[in-house]
């Protein structure tokens, strides 16, 4: 058998899961969709003494609409998010991103909580969480806390989660009115992790940009918000000269590395090209075009 020996419990409540994690003293791992954890077990990169399965906790998978935000349960599957009409209406940039996440069989099982907790440097959901200023609700035996997505991703595959904590809920503020979005990704093959991807939103009134957000993935150890580049857009209409300087600022804000899939230079080049495309798409959509 490929995975190492471990004990297993199927938690039936979040309380039961956090109690089991606490009792295992740092030796336990949560299994959600298993789509990132199972390969790590089979490669024996991880040797937990206990797997705490959260798949049978009722009420941990949901998409709820509130006045100003959507609340998504950590166990919500990628396929549910991809096909949710509520998300398509309020956060279409998230619906678009989901079609780039892996393949159907993996989207059927993979969860938003698992993707954020895993923190792959080329994953789409962490960048969307950072783009949309998500808040993450985390539970443990000692209580609850909330973390901003911006502060959650610490390094490649490293997030602000203790071994005894469960990510329970993700809160995503709705996009303001008159907001357009763009999502652009380059991968070797459809469904593969991004070589680089850019997501952007532009909120426009009276022909000029009031709020701009640009996030990237695949271009460093964690998802990046290009804050300096965003500022350049405020108060202006989108035109090519402006986009060029924003793309330059985005390239300056990232520190990509060479790997098997692409060189650092190519990633930096892509970051600019994809920023250009994403901003134009966002600008068009902010004017009500599809």
């Amino acid at each position, binding site marked *: 058998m490929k995975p190492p020996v471990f*004990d297993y419990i199927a938690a039936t409540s979040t309380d039961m899961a956090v109690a089991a994690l606490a009792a295992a003293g740092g030796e336990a791992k949560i299994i959600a969709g298993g789509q990132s954890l*199972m390969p790590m077990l*089979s490669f024996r990169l991880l040797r937990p003494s206990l797997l705490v399965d959260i798949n049978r906790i009722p009420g941990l998978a949901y998409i709820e609409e509130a006045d100003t935000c959507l609340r998504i349960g950590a166990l919500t599957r990628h396929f549910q998010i991809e096909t949710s009409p509520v998300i398509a209406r309020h956060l279409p940039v998230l619906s678009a991103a989901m079609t780039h996440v892996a393949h159907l069989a993996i989207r059927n099982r993979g969860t938003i909580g698992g993707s954020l907790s895993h923190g792959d440097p080329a994953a789409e959901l962490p960048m969307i969480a950072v783009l949309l200023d998500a808040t993450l609700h985390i539970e443990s035996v000692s209580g609850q806390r909330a973390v901003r997505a911006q502060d959650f991703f610490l390094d490649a595959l490293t997030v602000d989660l203790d071994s005894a904590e469960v990510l329970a809920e993700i809160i995503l503020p709705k996009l303001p009115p008159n907001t357009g979005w763009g999502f652009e990704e380059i991968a070797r093959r459809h469904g593969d992790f991004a070589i680089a991807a850019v997501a952007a939103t532009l909120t426009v009134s009276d022909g000029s940009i009031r709020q701009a957000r640009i996030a990237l993935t695949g271009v460093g150890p964690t998802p990046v918000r290009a804050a300096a580049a965003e500022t350049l857009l405020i108060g202006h209409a989108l035109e090519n000269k402006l986009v060029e300087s924003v793309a330059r600022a985005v390239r300056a804000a990232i520190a990509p590395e060479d790997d098997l899939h692409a060189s650092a230079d190519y990633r930096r080049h892509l970051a600019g090209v994809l920023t250009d495309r994403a901003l134009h798409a966002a600008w068009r959509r902010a004017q009500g075009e599809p």
Partner: protein
Amino acid sequence: MSGTRDITVTVNGATYPVSVEPRLLLVDFLRHTLGLTGTHVGCEHGVCGACTVLVDGDSARACLMLAIQADGRSIDTVEGLGRIGQMNALQESFHTHHALQCGFCTPGMLMTATDLLQKYPLATDDDIRRGLSGNLCRCTGYEHIVRAVRAVVDKRKAAP
């Protein structure tokens, strides 16, 4: 220590009460414990798609699931689609369009296409290609697999 656990799994309609070690992969359970070797194992880490089965009707990688997680669930494998002489429409279409050569990828292709057909309209060949992008084939060049799935989509559209 881990020991074994008693679980009950339904596979292709038949119910199996069995005892498994927690670390037993679903794919190894199907192949070694039940002897259902139609489900193939390629990469064993989620990238090739050969091991794809349906879990409660939804496609899933059997190498990325533990047998113990299938307790109380219903699994469908390629053996459940049809038999020699009585293949289902998708299998017939693979046959007609020469959608396989060595056949290694075929069980995963069939189970993936089964789920794609129930979830997406597959209006264009590009949609089919994208849908199958997680399943590797080293023989066919994919073209004939796309044609086989296309033929099933078209036949469904023609039928009311």
